[in-house]
């Protein structure tokens, strides 16, 4: 109202507004280190002017809304890149473990075991009837078989460890989706009344980010402020106020498959349609990379077993009996030295002619020469070539995953920096704002004092 009391109103409006602004500045300062926080600011607007003389009289300031400063598109981008980051991080971790198991840089791995095995056959060829040489050969053969067994079972253990991680992540995902559904409800309730649910939206965005690093999701926000989250294959995880859970079930290989529960008892297996996030990385390593290495190890062991056995059975031992099988088993997990040989090294067949001829070492030489024979990869590679290529491939896979991981890390860092520059709190800025608003508050208070003196003058006029 355009009189003295009007000025009082204007002053009161200014005081309150500046106080709000300081309030919000205080909130920003307090949350400078909160992850996912977007700075807020008060939007001030002039009140409706009143027509008067000499012209339109302004009626002061009003705090209209508290606005959250953020870039919606950036949120989607960060979510996408997070999925890839999670995937490559998980894959790299898994394959680095494989690299450690093969342990070739210290020189005590399968390569060394095979070398010593072939050398032991040559030692036997040098003295076919020698008991020491036979015992040594038996020992080296057992070491070879044990090394195969161990590497194989260690690789399988990686698969089992991955399952543990997958289970843990599924539980986290379920917790998060429940929370997002909760937040959906709260946010829509608040925004129906016309106010911005700034802090709740921040929390929801943070949860969505976390979710995106674990599994590939597509999000969309409805008009009612509720976010819908879809997972691979178009299945909803969060819709409106409800959330769906994921679970695991054991598949035919004894490993965990990921299933989506529809809430009414049935489930859908989504393992193969997951395309991002840590779950994808673990599944890829567990179901594609590691089984690849396992089957190559199996091939190697099976060929060594069959080639050695064929030659050994064509030879004759010290009792002039034909040789038995040298190795039992058909795969890397079960290769073992024939227990009869373990008990009696005299039945190792070094000789090539029947009749118990102790000096004939032709079978021993033939078996020792297997190391140069092109027995693998359809007759194009020796045992060592084949194994070396497995080691190289593991090294390559780690390098690839590391390169992708590094690339993704810098992408995500860059995007995060960009987001921080838009939505982050700068203490310097807040300090200056504080000074601004405080001065305005002081000035408004001074206005009130002035009006008070005016009133005093008027009253004491009479």
């Amino acid at each position, binding site marked *: 109202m355009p009189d003295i009391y009007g000025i009082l109103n204007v002053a009161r409006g200014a005081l309150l507004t500046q106080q709000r602004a300081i309030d919000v500045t205080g909130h920003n300062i307090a949350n*400078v*280190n909160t992850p996912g926080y977007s700075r807020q600011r008060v939007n001030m607007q002039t009140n409706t002017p009143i027509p008067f003389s000499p012209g339109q009289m302004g009626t002061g300031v009003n705090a209209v809304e508290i606005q959250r400063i953020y870039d919606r598109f950036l949120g989607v981008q960060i979510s996408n890149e997070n999925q890839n980051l999670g995937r490559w991080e998980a894959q790299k971790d898994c394959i*680095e473990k494989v*690299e*450690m198991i093969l342990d*070739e*840089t210290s*020189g005590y791995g399968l*390569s*060394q075991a095979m*070398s*010593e095995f*072939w*050398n032991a056959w*040559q*030692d036997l*060829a*040098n*003295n*076919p*009837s*020698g008991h020491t040489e036979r015992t040594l050969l038996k020992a080296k053969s057992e070491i070879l078989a044990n090394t195969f067994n161990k590497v194989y079972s260690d690789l399988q253990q990686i698969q089992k460890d991955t399952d543990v991680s997958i289970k843990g992540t599924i539980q986290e995902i379920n917790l998060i989706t429940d929370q997002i559904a909760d937040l959906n409800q709260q946010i829509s309730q608040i925004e129906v009344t016309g106010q911005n649910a700034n802090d709740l939206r921040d929390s929801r965005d943070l949860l969505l980010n976390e979710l995106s690093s674990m599994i590939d999701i597509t999000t969309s926000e409805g008009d009612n402020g509720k976010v819908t989250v879809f997972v691979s294959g178009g299945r909803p995880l969060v819709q409106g106020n409800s959330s769906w859970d994921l679970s695991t079930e054991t598949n035919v290989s004894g490993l965990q498959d990921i299933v989506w529960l529809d809430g009414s008892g049935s489930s859908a297996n989504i393992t193969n349609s997951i395309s991002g996030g840590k779950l994808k990385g673990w599944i890829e390593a567990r179901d594609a990379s590691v089984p690849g290495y396992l089957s190559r190890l199996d091939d190697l062991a099976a060929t060594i077993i069959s080639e050695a056995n064929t030659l050994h059975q064509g030879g004759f031992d010290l009792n002039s009996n034909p040789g038995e099988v040298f190795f039992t088993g058909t795969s890397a997990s079960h290769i073992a030295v024939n227990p009869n040989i373990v008990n009696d090294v005299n039945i190792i067949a070094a*000789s090539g*002619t029947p009749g118990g*001829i*102790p*000096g*004939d*070492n*032709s079978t021993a*030489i033939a078996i020792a020469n297997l190391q*140069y024979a092109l027995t693998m990869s359809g007759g194009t590679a020796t045992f*060592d070539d084949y*194994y*070396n*290529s497995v*080691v*190289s*491939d*593991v*090294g*390559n896979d*780690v*390098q690839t995953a*590391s390169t992708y991981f590094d690339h993704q890390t810098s992408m995500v*860092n860059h995007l*995060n*920096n960009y987001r*921080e*520059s*838009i939505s*982050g*709190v*700068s*203490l*310097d*800025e807040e*300090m*200056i704002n504080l*000074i601004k608003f405080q001065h305005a508050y002081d000035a408004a208070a001074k206005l009130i004092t002035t009006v008070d003196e005016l009133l005093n003058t008027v009253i004491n006029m009479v």
Partner: protein
Amino acid sequence: MRVTNRLMADTVLNSLYKNTQQLFKLQEMVSSQKRINRPSDDPIGMGKILDYRKVLSSIDQYNTNITRGKTQIDLTESCLEAIDDLVLKARRIAVEQSAGELENRPTAAQEVKNIYDQILQLANTRLGNTYILSGHQTDTAPFSRDADYNATYHGDDGDIRIIVGDNLDIKINVTGEDALRSGVDVFDALRDLINGLEDPDTTAGTAQIATQITPLSNALDQIKAVRAEAASMFIQLETTENQLANFKLNIEDRLSDTEDVDMAQAIVELQIQKTAYETSLATAAKILQRSLMDFLR
């Protein structure tokens, strides 16, 4: 671009991470003296390293095998040399006695009998547990005789072979059969010489003695031929040994080239990285500490 405190802190942190990562890598290289500490450092290099190691291990084994071969051939040679001397002695006795001397026949006969037994013993030499002139029947003495000085060969004609290279094995033995029985039968010749010396009918005896001279001379040639065969085996082994020694040096060089770190270069890089790290730390300290609040009242 609007730069907030958090942005600066994060950026500083990230560059510190990068620096320490590099530092760690270099430090690992320097302390392990290897450029390749895991297959992913250089997959192709890793493959080569495994290859070289395998070759070196094979070469060591070949050297062991060659030593075994050389030992056997050495022993064979010294046996055959001794047998050679004994046969020469027997031949000399035959020559002397065939000229008609009659008084020392019994002594001569005894000498030849001793020679016979000595040759038998030499032929039955063992290397460790194995008889070296028996072919494949290494646990059976190659020769034995009966009371009438008839010798029997119990060995066979098998080759004892050792591996000296990729798919390469060579023979390292000679058989008693080849040295002493095929062609000229040394034992039979000596037996006949003994019989001739002990023949009460001196004329027939002298004649018999005389007929043993040529076989014994031929026996010397035969033994020499076998010794030459053994010698050529030995030379082959030695040549291979020398080749392997050179090859080994070569491979060790290449292994070192691929696997070892150039210490000077690595240490220089380590210093540079350390300086970079310290610089970022110092810069961080200067930037992160200041804010507007230090200047307001």
